[in-house]
Structure formats: structure tokens, C-alpha cells
């Protein structure tokens, strides 16, 4: 089966399932980890890795988020979140040509703004923008560190060609 001339391999399917599992297991299995004001969602840590793994990772994270959000304490409104995240994930993928930091920043702003809005609708009177921003930012920061470690490892060097990585690192 080919899409735009790219043959779908078992690895595409594998990356899709692994990223869906990272989000689902990270969110449902580990829950939220508190760091003072911030509530870290471990499932979000895989987000910057979209810059390495591309479309299969994007689809995996969106599907993982859909699965995890079916059990969300916020109810059915949280099923909209994966589609907001999709826009952020596309930003991570396409802006990684310049730098992964820019796309990740777009993702954090977009998803934390949506999260804050959603919480304020469900629980009127609360203004959770700072907590949402800190929680999302912390998870993405950890993801960015993992991204910089991984792109120097042999199996992932080929995949990061074409992104903003100095040639000597490749």
C-alpha cells in the first residue's frame, strides 16, 4: 500500500502504535505528576519526537490522545483536544525544518490555551492558564531533551536528515 509514492512498511505501523501507546500509557497509566503548581502529563513527552518520526508519530499521538481522553475526567468535551493537538503536532513537524523549539512552543501555547479554556468552561470561576502552560511546557521540555539525545543516536540520525541538524552531527 503506498501513499504519495511512499510505501507503508511495518515500521510505519509500529511507530504509529508505539506513539499511541506512549500517550495512552503515559496518561492513563501514570496519570498526572505534580510539580508544585504544574501538573505534568507524561503522555505529552513524545510530542517533540514528531520531528524525528513524522506522520506515523503524529497519527499515533492523535489516536493515543483520543483513546486516553475517552476516560478523561472532563467528559466528552475532551475528545475535541486531539484535533487541537493535531494542529500543534503539524507545527512541530513542519517547523522542525528550522528548529524543533519553535514548533514545540506553538504546540504548548495552542494546547495550554485550549486546556485552560476547557477547564474554565467546565469549572467556571477558575483561571487555570498558568498551571496549564506550566504543565504542558514542562512535559514538552523533557521531550525536547529526549529529542536532542535521540537525534545523535545511530538509529535516528537518518530520520533527522532534512531537519535543522548540523551536518557534522549527522
Amino acid at each position, binding site marked *: *500500500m503506498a501513499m504519495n509514492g511512499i*510505501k*507503508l*512498511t*511495518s*515500521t*510505519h*505501523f*509500529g*511507530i*504509529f*502504535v*508505539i506513539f*499511541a*501507546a*506512549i500517550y*495512552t*500509557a503515559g496518561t*492513563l*497509566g501514570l496519570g498526572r505528576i505534580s510539580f508544585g503548581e504544574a501538573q505534568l502529563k507524561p503522555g505529552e513527552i513524545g510530542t517533540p519526537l514528531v520531528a524525528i518520526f513524522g506522520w506515523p508519530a503524529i497519527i499515533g499521538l492523535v489516536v*493515543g490522545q483520543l*483513546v*486516553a481522553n*475517552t*476516560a478523561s475526567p472532563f*467528559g*466528552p468535551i475532551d475528545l475535541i483536544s486531539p484535533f487541537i493537538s493535531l494542529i500543534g503536532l503539524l507545527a512541530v513537524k513542519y517547523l522542525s525544518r528550522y528548529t524543533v523549539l519553535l514548533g514545540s512552543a506553538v504546540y504548548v501555547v495552542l494546547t495550554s490555551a485550549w486546556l485552560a479554556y476547557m477547564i474554565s468552561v467546565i469549572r467556571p470561576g477558575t483561571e487555570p492558564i498558568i498551571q496549564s502552560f506550566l504543565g504542558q511546557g514542562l512535559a514538552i521540555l523533557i521531550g525536547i531533551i529526549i529529542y536532542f539525545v535521540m537525534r545523535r543516536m545511530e*538509529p535516528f540520525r537518518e530520520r533527522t536528515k532534512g531537519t535543522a541538524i548540523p551536518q557534522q552531527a549527522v
Partner: protein
Amino acid sequence: MAHEDTEKEHEGSPWPALIGLSTAPLITGLILILKGLNFTAGLGLVTFFLVILVAFVSREIRHWPHVIAAFFSRLRRTPIPAEPEIVSGVGVPTAIFLFTEVALFGAGFASFFAIRAAFATWPPPGAPHLEDFIPRLQTLMLLLSSLAIEWAVYSVRRDRRGGVLAGVVATALLGTGFLVLKLGFEWPHLWEIGFTPASGVYGSSFYLLLGAHGAHVLGGVVALAVVASRAKLGQFTSTSYGLLESVSIYWHFVHLVWLLLFAIIYEGAFAWL
């Protein structure tokens, strides 16, 4: 040469589709008989399926000795593996196979939600609280196993035999660990507290869905054992690893189904429905 011709003959064979379609009359016939609606019509439909099946078997049985011999020969390092195993990626046959699996589990999930909709509260009153510690461990094990099988695929594309064997064996061990946690710890505990398939519709749904998934994991572990024994004999190369690729796709699919089961059965997905 004869068996190569046979393999070519199987390309585009109508038999799988014919047998698959003839299961519809079979099921209809069984319903007519078991519900006592029309015994003659039911028997006719069941007979129709059996005729198709007998025609297929009588045609194919002459090839079976070769197929069986080829399978065992591969495990004994005979010249038969000289034919490269096609690496086709996620092609149409794989997609059709995955669709049948989706249909199977889709029917399971649909019946689960249909049953759930009939109850005012879910889980039904009196049902035990399901601890999710073991399922969380199982989720982690399947995540690691998917990474391990991808390592095997990555290694075979670079002709690294050690990596292939290590990846496949690690996947098989993690799959076995998944089953040990389920059958050795979780289910015995649930039986001890009286939660069995006979505990009502909640119990039967729980064991049916998780049992079907467990059977798929067991099938995957058996397939991985075959792949491991062939990897040990060095039968996979960067241009011939079709079996490893197929098993890896199957294993990822089994993992994906588990994520849904974990969310729906243990984490209260769709509780707002």
C-alpha cells in the same frame, strides 16, 4: 519447481473470499436450526458451506505435504529457504487481515457497549472493583515489546543477526510475561474473590474480551518462537524477512487492541455515556 507453480497459483486465488462469504449462509443456517425456525432451510445452508469447504480441501490437500515439509525444513536448515520471503510492507492482504481482526474485536466491543447500555449503572451493582496495577504493568510490557520487535526489524534491514534474535526473543519474553501476569496473578485473584465468567453478564464480557485478546497474544508468542528459531539459524536477511515483518505487524496490532481494552475495561472510558 512444482511448488513454485503452486505458490503462483495461490496468488489471487478466489478460495479465501469464497469460503469467507460462504460463512454467511453457514451462520444463517445455524441460526435457523438452533432457533427452530426452519430446519430444512437451515440444513440446506449449512450443507452449502460444507460443499464449498470439501471442494476447497479436496483441491488443496495434494499440496499439504509440501507445505508441511517446507515449514519443518525451514526449521532444520535445508535448502528450501533459498526462496526469498517477499517483504511487502503493509499491503492489501495485510490490510484485509487486519480488517478481519478489527471486525472481530469491533464486534466484541460493540456487544460490550450494547450490554453496558442496558444497565443503569456500570459496572453493575455487586461487581468487584478492578485493580489496574497489573494492567498498567502489562501496558508497559507491550510498549517495550513493540520497541523490541522494531529493533529486530531495524537490525534485519542492516543484516545484523544478533540484533534480530535479541529483539525477537525480548518480544517473546515480554509477551510471555504479559500472559503470566494475566493467567498467573490477575485472573486467579479475581476467581478467588468470586469474579468468574459465570458471575453474570459483566463477568462474561470481561473474560470474553480479555480472553480473546490473551489468545491473540499467545498466538503471537508462538509465531515469535518460530521467528526466533529461524533467526537463530540465520534465515533472515535484509532482502528476505517477510515472516518477521508479518509477525511484527500482527504484534503491533495486538498491542493496539490492548490499549483500547485497558482504557475501556480498567480506566472507565466512556463513563459519561
